[in-house]
């Protein structure tokens, strides 16, 4: 049952990822990306990472994709500026190179001994366990993350506001 679900969501994720990079209109590729994030959230649930799956939906789909859609509408690209892809020769060898890279990666991964998953208790991926770890062992990254968000906020406002 779980393996069938995993293979279905994995296929949906890869298919939508390829659709994202091939569509001409950025709005359509943004919405394919939203579907890709949903199938990834489902794969995270299969990995019993419940809190991360919900964060994936809430932050990626609810915040980042909303911003991307706003910017796409803001820029209001007319057909001319959409710009076709790079000359086909470049595109072609890009795809070939990535294909070779993919085969190498898949081969490297095969070497990993297929150990059984460690049996994990019921509360594995939930908010309490993550919070306990986050606020005891990983306290410094947590505070630095707030500095990162501060700089992002100020940087974006400076960039976006017209200079008076």
């Amino acid at each position, binding site marked *: *049952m779980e393996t069938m679900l995993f293979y279905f969501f994995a296929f949906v994720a890869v298919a939508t990822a390829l659709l994202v990079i091939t569509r001409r209109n950025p*709005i*359509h590729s943004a*919405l394919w990306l*939203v579907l890709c994030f949903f199938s990834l959230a489902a794969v995270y649930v299969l990995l019993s990472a*419940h*809190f991360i799956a*919900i964060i994936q*939906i*809430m932050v990626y*789909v*609810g*915040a980042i*994709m*909303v911003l991307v*859609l*706003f910017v796409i*509408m803001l820029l209001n690209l007319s057909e001319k500026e959409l710009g076709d892809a790079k000359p086909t020769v470049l595109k072609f060898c890009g795809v070939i190179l990535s294909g070779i890279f993919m085969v190498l990666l898949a081969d490297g991964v095969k070497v990993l001994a297929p150990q059984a998953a460690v049996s994990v208790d019921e*509360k594995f991926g*939930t*908010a309490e366990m993550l919070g306990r770890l986050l606020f005891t062992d990983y306290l410094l990254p947590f505070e630095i993350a707030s500095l990162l968000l501060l700089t992002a906020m100020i940087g974006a406002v400076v960039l976006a506001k017209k200079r008076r």
Partner: protein
Amino acid sequence: MQFAIQWLVDKFSFLSPISILLLISLMFIVGTVVLLLAMLYEGLGTYALRKIGGDIQVRIGPNRVGPVGLLQFLADGVKLFLKEDIVPTVVDKKLFILAPFITFAASCAAFVALSYSDRLVISNLNIGLFYLLAISSLVVIGVIMAGWASNSKWSLLGGMRAAAQIVSYEIPIGLSLLSVILITQSLNMGEIIRSQSGGWGILNWHIFHNPFVFISFFIYFTAALAEVNQTPFDLPETESELVAGYFTEYSGMRFGFFFMAEWGEIFIVSAIAVTLFLGGWQLPIINNLDIHIYLKNLLQLGVFLGKTFLLIYLMLWIRWTLPRLRVDQIMYMCWKVLLPFAFFNIIGTGLWLLIFKGKGIPELVIQLFS
């Protein structure tokens, strides 16, 4: 529902391969029942909206169809059904058709995580409340898509404004719910409600636990009103200025989906308020009744729905009395009033819990006297 499945699976455990199929088919049946109940509720919601609006403005609401006009929503539904679905040529066809499905699916997907009574829970999610917040951000995608796809000035402007309003009011909602989580220490909707049971009946509800949670209930309620685009925050879909905002171009059953999604959203928002602040399906009289377990669950379900409909009645009351706010007033209210209040509220709740070691006002008052 979990107990029903366990009982069924054990009963039919001898034919094990079929039991999984049975489990799936049972879930499908329960799913369609939930969906039909949601649609029925949404229909009655539209009827209640016009009936209550009627008697607030001292006129009679719909009373032609059915005994007291009760079947009016069926008449509306059939009318929408038979209306022609106009898909304007200049429209982005794929997105135009997809947008109502996303908003409708998003508002219905949230019915799963609510806890209707002690044992009547569709999916007992450990992170129930957070799942509801995530689903409400999915509605924003549907709204933007509808606004962009209808390719007309009005709906694009309405879609952007509605999206900006829903998005910016999600922060005060997230923050005000936090102060309740500080008390209950769990995101599971069932446990939040069970933590409100205790000796003093009504006084156990979270709203009376400490003054900061009391304030955050009102922050939550105003932010929730804005989240579902209800007056006085319903500028994006006003009839007068933006000609029904982002669903201007929709007609027939597609328009019906947007309307049903809005009512689903109203139910969920008030159900969250009832679960977190007003004691969910807890009522002092019911708790110590020792009747049969199923009857008790039914009563608890009645209490939960009763409280939610009371809150919805309050929303409708506000809808028919208060005037509409301008866009900059709505944004000012969110970013410069609700947000700072919600922040200081959380710090206040944290301090209160630290100083009084997690005890609420009722316990402290009892301690004083005893």
